[in-house]
C-alpha cells in the first residue's frame, strides 16, 4: 500500500476534522440574534431636523420650476431640444413609463398610477416619491432625488458579470433602505431598480404570503414607510406614502406540480392583476451540487413574463416556500407553462461564480422533466 504524503494526510485529516465540527444550534441562534441586533444599530439614528424649513425652500423652488414649465407647455411651442430638456426635468418625467417593468408601463396606460410628491429634505438633498402603484401584491414607488432644485445622482447601476451594482458611492447615491407597512417590518421585502436617469429609481415592495391563507399580508390600503439612507448624508430620509389597491385581481387556487428525481415543486396559487402575476409555490430538494430551482413563466405564445421579485424562505419541514412576482400576463392568456431551471456556475459548488451568457445574463439550465403547462380557465 502506498503511503500518503504528509500533505495528503493533513488535507484528509483536517478536512475530516472540520466536517465533524458542527455549529451548535444554540450558538448559531445567539450569533444570529447578536448580528441582527447590531445591523439594526448600524443605520444612523434619525433626529429632528430643520426639515420643514428646507422642505418649504425646496417646495418653493419646485413651484417656481413648475410654473416655468407650465408656461412653456402652455405656450404651445415645444422644440425637440426643449422637449428633451423638459423630459429630463423631474416634474415632467414619467419614471414608470420610461423605466418601469412592463406592468408599470401598462399601469400608466391604464391610469392606475397615482402621481404625488411626498418629499423629505436632508442636507440640501430632497428625496421625493413621485409615483405609486399598488395592486395588492406589490407596491412600486418612483423616487426622484434633487439637490437644491437640480437632479442629483441617486442610482446609476451597471450590470457587471450579470449582477446589478452601483459603482458610484458619491454623495446622494443610494446606500440602504428599510420598508415598513403600517409601521411594521414583518416579512416586507424590497427591490430597487433603475429609474429614468441617475436621479431616479423605482423601489418595489412585496410581502411573503402567509402559509395558511396563501395571501400576502398586505392590506388593501396602508401607509408604506420608506427609510432611505444615501451616501454622504448623515440622516436617513423618511417617506410615508399612502397606498391603495386599485386593481381587480384574478386568483386561481391550484394544487399542481411536478417531481423529477429529488427535485419537486408544487404551485398552490396564482394571482393575476393588470400589472403583475404572483405565484405561490413550494419546492423541495436540491441538486447534488446544492443548486436551487428557479422558475420562468411563459404563455401559450411563448411570451416570457419578466421577473419582478422573488421571496424564498424555509418551512419547518425543510421545504422552501416561494412568492414569485412576474410581469403581467395578457388578459386573454389561455395557458401558462412553468419552466423550472437552475443557474449554471463555473466553479465548484462552494466557490460559485455565475456563468454569463452572450447577453450578459446568468446562464440557465432548464429541466424539461419538471416543466408543466397549466390551462387557465376563462373568466
Amino acid at each position, binding site marked *: 500500500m502506498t503511503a500518503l504524503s504528509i500533505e495528503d494526510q*493533513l488535507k484528509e485529516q483536517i478536512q475530516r476534522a472540520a466536517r465533524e465540527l458542527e455549529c451548535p444550534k444554540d450558538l448559531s441562534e445567539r450569533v444570529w440574534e447578536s448580528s441582527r441586533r447590531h445591523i439594526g444599530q448600524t443605520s444612523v439614528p434619525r433626529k429632528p431636523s430643520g426639515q420643514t424649513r428646507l422642505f418649504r425652500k425646496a417646495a418653493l423652488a419646485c413651484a417656481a420650476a413648475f410654473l416655468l414649465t407650465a408656461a412653456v407647455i402652455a405656450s404651445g411651442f415645444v422644440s425637440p431640444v426643449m422637449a428633451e430638456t423638459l423630459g429630463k426635468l423631474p416634474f415632467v418625467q414619467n419614471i414608470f413609463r420610461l423605466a418601469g417593468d412592463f406592468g408599470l408601463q401598462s399601469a400608466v396606460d391604464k391610469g392606475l398610477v397615482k402621481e404625488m410628491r411626498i418629499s423629505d429634505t436632508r442636507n440640501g438633498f430632497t428625496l421625493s416619491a413621485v409615483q405609486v402603484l399598488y395592486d395588492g401584491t406589490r407596491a412600486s414607488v418612483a423616487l426622484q432625488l434633487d439637490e437644491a432644485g437640480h437632479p442629483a445622482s441617486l442610482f446609476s447601476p451597471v450590470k457587471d458579470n450579470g449582477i446589478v451594482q452601483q459603482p458610484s458611492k458619491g454623495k446622494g447615491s443610494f446606500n440602504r433602505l428599510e420598508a415598513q407597512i403600517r409601521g411594521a417590518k414583518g416579512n416586507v421585502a424590497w427591490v430597487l431598480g433603475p429609474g429614468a436617469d441617475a436621479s431616479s429609481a423605482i423601489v418595489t415592495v412585496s410581502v411573503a404570503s402567509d402559509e395558511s391563507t396563501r395571501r400576502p399580508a398586505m392590506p388593501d390600503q396602508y401607509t408604506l414607510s420608506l427609510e432611505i439612507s444615501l451616501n454622504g448624508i448623515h440622516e436617513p430620509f423618511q417617506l410615508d406614502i399612502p397606498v391603495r389597491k386599485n386593481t381587480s385581481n384574478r386568483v386561481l387556487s391550484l394544487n399542481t406540480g411536478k417531481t423529477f428525481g429529488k427535485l419537486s415543486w408544487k404551485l398552490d396559487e396564482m394571482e393575476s392583476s393588470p400589472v403583475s402575476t404572483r405565484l405561490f409555490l413550494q419546492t423541495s430538494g436540491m441538486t447534488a451540487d446544492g443548486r436551487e430551482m428557479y422558475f420562468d413563466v411563459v404563455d401559450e405564445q411563448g411570451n416570457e413574463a419578466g421577473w419582478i421579485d422573488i421571496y424564498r424562505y424555509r418551512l419547518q419541514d425543510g421545504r422552501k416556500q416561494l412568492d414569485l412576482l412576474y410581469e403581467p400576463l395578457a388578459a386573454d392568456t389561455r395557458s401558462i407553462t412553468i419552466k423550472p431551471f437552475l443557474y449554471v456556475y463555473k466553479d465548484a459548488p462552494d466557490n460559485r461564480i455565475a456563468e454569463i451568457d452572450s447577453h450578459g445574463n446568468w446562464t440557465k439550465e432548464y429541466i424539461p422533466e419538471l416543466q408543466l403547462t397549466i390551462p387557465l380557465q376563462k373568466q
Partner: protein
Amino acid sequence: MQDIDITPWLQKLKEGDEEAFRHVYDATVQDVYRIVALLIPRRQDIEDIMSEVYLKLWTSIGNYDPTRPFRYWLHGIAVRQVQDWKRKMWRKLRLFERQTLLEIKEESPQTDHPALRNETSEEVRMALHKLSYKLRVVIVLRYYHEYTFGEIAELLDLPQGTVKSRHHLALKELRKYAVFLEEQKGGDCLVH
C-alpha cells in the same frame, strides 16, 4: 456553503436587505464556524468572533467584488476578525490578571453528534492548536480550504515567500506530534 444557493441573494445583500442577510447567514454559518473553530480553541471566543465576522460582512458587503468567489472574500473577513480578536486578547492579558484567564478551562468546539466524533480528528485539532497562530492559519487555509500559496498570501497580506516558510515550519512542527501515522517513502516529508 454547499447547501444553499446564495448567489442571487448577494445582490440584495449589497442593497442592505436584511432578509438576504439571513439567507447568507444560514448558508455560511457552518463554514464560518469551522474556520474560526479550527483557528481558535475557546467556544466563547468562537461565538464572539463569529458575531464580529457577520457584523463586518454586513458593513463591508459593498466592497465585495462579485466577479470573485464570495467564499474566499468571506474567509478573508473571518481570518482578519480572528487576528483582531487575538490582538484584543493580548491586550486583555496585559490589562487584567493573567491568572484569571489561565484558570478558564479550554473548551473544544462541540459537535451536535458527539458519537460521531473521531479521536484522530480530535488529535488533529489538538495538534493544530499546539502550533503558533501564525503557522496554524497557514495550515488551515492550505489544507482545509485548499488555497494556493498565492491566495493565502493575499488573504493574510503577506509575501508569498513568508507563507511558504511558515508552511514549511508548520509541517516540521506537526511531525513532532506524530498525528500522521503513515510515512511517505522518499522525499523530505518523512514522519519520524
